């Protein structure tokens, strides 16, 4: 017993002695997706603007929403996706962006601006975008990868990875049946649910986290993933490719926003502007792997990126894809119940 106590006292001593000294630099609190920004870039910003960045991360839009909505904390910059931005705008939780303070907005391609969730980009500045598709092992998958039907092909039983998120998995099933990703009709939602229940015996797992290693090791033959994750896997492993099915898919846009109660909105705008600088944006692209609307940054990238199907999304694929809408509560309840039933089914 004494041994253990001694061990932990010895282990902790250096940390108690050291510790972070406080400083009086300006503070900026950023709440972003996990591993969605190169830490070097943040350090660079701190140095150039003589400030301190509190950097926190979340795993889903919903996690972020619950935390921002319910906690007494204030954040200066958030990076939610399209439908969540729509909800935040509706709930009047965001602060309009002063575009004059973000001259680098000129670097952003027009295709990523003025989208339905934030007309005129009053509240949000584009960061990354991507599209849901299928990453597959070219050695194992012999059929053409052009339809969501492939995920229902029992040739690949126990080799299929689905995406563990209500809207995404339901969206795949809805699209396959010819419905919208933002379907609101109960009958259609239930049809998509039944299709997923029928598919479940073929599915290896519903995951968001372990896709990379399972695809790299060949344990899984195909996986429903977002393009940027596919780009990273493909840059590390040969014999993988990425395709967006012809029925269409989900496209997302993750944008910077500033909450209404931000303590340091000026610095937040400087931060956003900094992230849009071509050199900085290029660094982030190489770290994150998602597609960027920052045209000058794309020119700085290594040639291998433009050949990466997960990074270089075609205009047609994007055009066929829908952006999620923030669905009303009663519709979400139908989705939730359907999802629980899928989860419970055998």
């Amino acid at each position, binding site marked *: 017993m004494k041994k253990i106590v001694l061990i932990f006292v010895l282990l902790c001593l250096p940390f108690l002695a050291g510790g972070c000294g406080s400083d009086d630099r300006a503070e900026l609190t950023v709440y972003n997706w996990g591993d969605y920004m190169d830490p070097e870039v943040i350090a660079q910003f701190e140095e150039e603007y003589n400030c301190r960045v509190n950097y926190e991360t979340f795993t889903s839009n*919903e996690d972020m929403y619950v935390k921002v909505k319910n906690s007494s904390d204030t954040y200066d910059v958030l990076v939610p996706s399209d439908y969540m931005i729509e909800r935040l705008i509706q709930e009047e939780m965001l602060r309009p962006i002063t575009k004059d303070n973000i001259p680098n907005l000129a670097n952003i391609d027009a295709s990523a601006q003025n989208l339905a969730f934030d007309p005129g980009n009053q509240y949000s500045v584009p960061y990354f975008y991507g599209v849901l598709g299928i990453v597959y092992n070219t050695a194992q998958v012999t059929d053409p990868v052009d339809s969501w039907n492939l995920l229902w092909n029992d040739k690949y039983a126990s080799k299929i990875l689905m995406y563990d998120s209500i809207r995404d998995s339901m969206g795949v099933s809805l699209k396959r049946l010819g419905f919208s990703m933002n379907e609101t009709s109960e009958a259609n939602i239930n049809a998509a649910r039944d299709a997923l229940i029928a598919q479940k015996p073929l599915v290896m*797992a519903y*995951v968001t986290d372990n896709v990379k*290693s399972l695809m790299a090791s060949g344990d899984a033959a195909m996986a429903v993933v977002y393009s940027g994750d596919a780009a990273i896997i493909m840059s590390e492993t040969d014999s993988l490719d990425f395709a967006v099915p012809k029925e269409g898919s989900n496209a997302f846009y993750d944008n910077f926003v500033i909450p209404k109660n931000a303590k340091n909105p000026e610095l937040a705008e400087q931060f956003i502007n900094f992230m849009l600088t071509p050199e900085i944006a290029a660094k982030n692209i190489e770290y994150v792997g998602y597609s960027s609307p920052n045209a000058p940054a794309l020119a700085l990238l290594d040639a291998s990126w433009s050949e990466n199907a997960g990074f270089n999304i075609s205009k047609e694929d994007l055009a066929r894809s829908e952006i999620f809408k923030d669905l009303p509560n009663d519709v979400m309840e139908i989705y*939730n119940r359907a999802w629980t039933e899928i*989860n419970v089914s055998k």
Partner: protein
Amino acid sequence: MKSFKEYIAYPYGLWMLIFIAVPLLVVIWFSFLSNPDFKAGIYTFTLENYQQFMDPVYLELLYRSFLYAVIATLICFLIAYPLGNLIVSLPGHRQNMMIVLMIIPMWVNFLLRTYAWMVLLSGSGLISQFFRLLGFRDVSLLYTQSAVILGMVYNFFPYMLLPIYTSLKKIDPDLLRAATDLGANHFQMFLKIKIPLSLPGIVSGCMMVFMPAVSTFVISNLLGGGKYMLIGNLIEQQFLTLNNWNFGSAISMVLMTIIFLVLGIARLITGKELDTGGQLL
């Protein structure tokens, strides 16, 4: 001990009221509300959250969670009890060493250890390779019920071992010797002396494994690949993704009530007040 007065425990009583009792009451209160709007001051009292739970889909979940937790508890016990006996038979400083070795893995982050299991269990992982060498074909253990139960056993095993070890250690060796002298055989000694004397440790170990196992959501998520949802996942989903705190609270209350019932039964078995954690070391 009259020199010490009971009021030295009062500050902690206050602490418990604020940080344990009040929050718990809030959850109970939440579980009886439907779609409250606190800003507008609108809340209606309802039983619908509980009614909603009485749905075969959710009851099945509850059943599955209990089944898995019971299996995990049993396996832990079947490993920990003989192991505890082995450790007790070691010389004193070796005993300490062994116990320390059993605790240290818990200081490496629990999520990380679970991720590492995912690597070990996957089709290309070591364990599957091993099975393949033995002649089995293509066994991927990852994302199966076995993986979920293995995760529970792995993560909560020390909670079973420690109380059992403590209670076995307390048994006076002279008692066992006396029993042998009086002609008891190994089996009788085990059944009539060892088991009854270590019963508090066994019960407390079982509770310490059962409770986190029945409410886990991380293990079933990571090792079950979202295919083996448990009641903990349902609660987490209500609070985190669906933002339905009232239903989430109601499920939590149901789960807690059942846990208290189980505890009551355990108390009947041992015949005394249970100190769940007290037997830990």
